[in-house]
């Protein structure tokens, strides 16, 4: 693919974690380089949080290892943990402290003292929009503010690596927007992993998405690469008057790069056709000019990209097929979907 060989700041090698009989994480290998924002997706219970807990050193993997900027988390945990900022699921914080005293505590543990400490606290509080509540007890704060306290704690020491477990969960749209822009701001010189359920978030902030299901990676690629996995990616949908529907269909079927034509809807004297692009090629120009050549009026024409939601659903609902798919899905994503 396009990316040059960048040293991975976060590297996990075939992580396995079992809880009793349940294998929560089953061989997850990830590489996240500086400048990357990795969207970590998966249904509830897929192993997202468990994986993040292993990356941050809270849990020991049963097998495999975690390398943080080359440092083995198991062998030298303190050195590795120093480089990570972590927002655990649910953003836990000491309820009886205020954001200020709490952040001071974290700053001291992170090795800052005196005015240096207070400055770090001030900056982190400002970045996450905590001014105004800095001296209120955490337990009295709203969910949104609590989440921000957790975020402030994670970015306080300006770490190279940020692991954020559902950073926008429970936030209102404005707060979500704020957190996303904060992530975008920091993205350039950090390796960031964000777990989320919200797929448009992945499209908005992530440079890459990994979908995991039942402890395995089932897809890995940019949002676009994942969309290419949908049959109708780059398909062209045209809206023509009913009178012209016959010739229009014939024209579409006659095009070399159209692998199939579906009638999507028939409504108010209009017919909607969808021309599927063979090999996900860009066919919109071809379709438009062919229709124009035949003087067929087109009321609407647009390209289908495919929604990440659909990709997600497709990948994670094929219960019994999921495991068999795991291998070739990754292969496909890495090929950039060129041949699919």
């Amino acid at each position, binding site marked *: 693919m396009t990316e040059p060989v960048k040293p991975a700041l976060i590297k996990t090698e075939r992580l396995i974690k079992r809880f009793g009989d349940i294998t929560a994480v089953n061989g997850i290998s990830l590489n996240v380089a500086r400048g990357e924002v990795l969207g970590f997706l998966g249904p509830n219970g897929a192993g997202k949080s468990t994986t993040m*807990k292993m990356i*941050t*050193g*809270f*849990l020991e993997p049963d097998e495999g290892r975690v390398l943080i900027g080359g440092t083995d988390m198991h062998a030298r945990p*303190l*050195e590795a*943990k*120093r480089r*990570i900022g*972590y927002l*655990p*699921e*649910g953003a*836990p*914080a*000491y*309820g*009886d*402290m205020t954001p200020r*005293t709490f952040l001071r*505590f*974290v700053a*001291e*543990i*992170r090795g800052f003292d005196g005015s240096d400490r207070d400055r770090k606290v001030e900056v982190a509080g400002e970045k996450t929009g905590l001014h105004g509540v800095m001296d209120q*007890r955490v337990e009295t704060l709203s969910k949104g503010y609590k989440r921000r306290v957790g975020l402030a*704690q994670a970015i306080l020491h300006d770490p190279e690596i940020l692991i954020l477990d559902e950073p926008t969960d429970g936030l209102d749209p404005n707060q979500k927007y704020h957190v996303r822009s904060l992530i975008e701001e920091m993205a350039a010189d950090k390796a960031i992993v964000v777990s989320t359920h919200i797929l448009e978030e992945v499209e908005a902030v992530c440079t890459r998405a990994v979908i995991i299901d039942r402890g395995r990676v089932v897809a890995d690629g940019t949002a676009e690469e994942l969309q290419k996995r949908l049959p109708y990616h780059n398909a062209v949908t045209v809206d023509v008057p009913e009178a012209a529907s016959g010739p229009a269909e014939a024209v579409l079927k006659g095009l070399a790069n159209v692998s199939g034509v579906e009638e999507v809807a028939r409504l108010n004297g209009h017919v909607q056709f969808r021309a599927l692009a063979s090999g996900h090629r860009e066919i919109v120009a071809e379709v438009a000019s062919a229709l124009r050549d035949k003087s067929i009026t087109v009321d609407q024409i647009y390209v289908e990209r495919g929604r990440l939601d659909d990709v997600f659903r497709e990948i994670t609902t094929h219960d019994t097929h999921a495991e068999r798919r795991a291998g070739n899905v990754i292969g496909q994503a890495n090929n950039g979907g060129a041949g699919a």
Partner: protein
Amino acid sequence: MRNVWIIAKREFAGYFNTALAFVFVVIFVALTSAFAFYVGNLFGRGQADLYPFFQYHPWLYLMLVPAVAMRLWAEERKSGTIELLMTLPIAPWQAIVGKFLAAWAFIGVALVLTFPIWITVNMLGNPDNGVILASYIGSFLMAGAYLSIGSFISALTKNQVIAFIVSALICFLFIMAGLNLVLGFFREWAPAFIVSGLESMSFLSHFDQITRGLIGLPSVIFYLSMIAFFLFANTLAVEQKKAE
């Protein structure tokens, strides 16, 4: 050591963030004094010493110390802050020792606040202040041993009530190990070394010696090694249970 200090400082300040701390100190001072005067008959004995005061400490600590210890780890686990704590660049033992020291210091504050009773006996007579000082030190050490047990148990559960009851029960066993009632039962059939081993494990026998003015090295070592042992167990418990 720096990290231990930071943890201890946060934890200690935490006690005073809530009214609970003041309630505890008041109850502590009131109970220890009430037992000394009403049950121990401090005045009626006509002796200028604090033996009736210290005599009841092992029993009062049975309730008071687990009450302080129960939240140490159970709360961290329940609220999820343990995940935060254990992903900060500190070693688990630093967190455990830090939290323990804060709680111990807190009990120490409560103990120091019983000083009026010391002044009282000095005004009424001429007590052996050396013995009283030794007793205070012994009482503090004993509280530390109770606390280390409580801290360990607290790491095994998310439920503070369970932590309280189980710690109190275990501390109770350590007290009972020194009573003739229990020792007599073992003397019937067990070899002598077991009986004396059992007796030497008792909080009561060690504390009794100290309050009678014999602050022997073995007793100090006993309490300190109890603390070390249970804090070590505490570390294992936290590692094992943190993610549950």
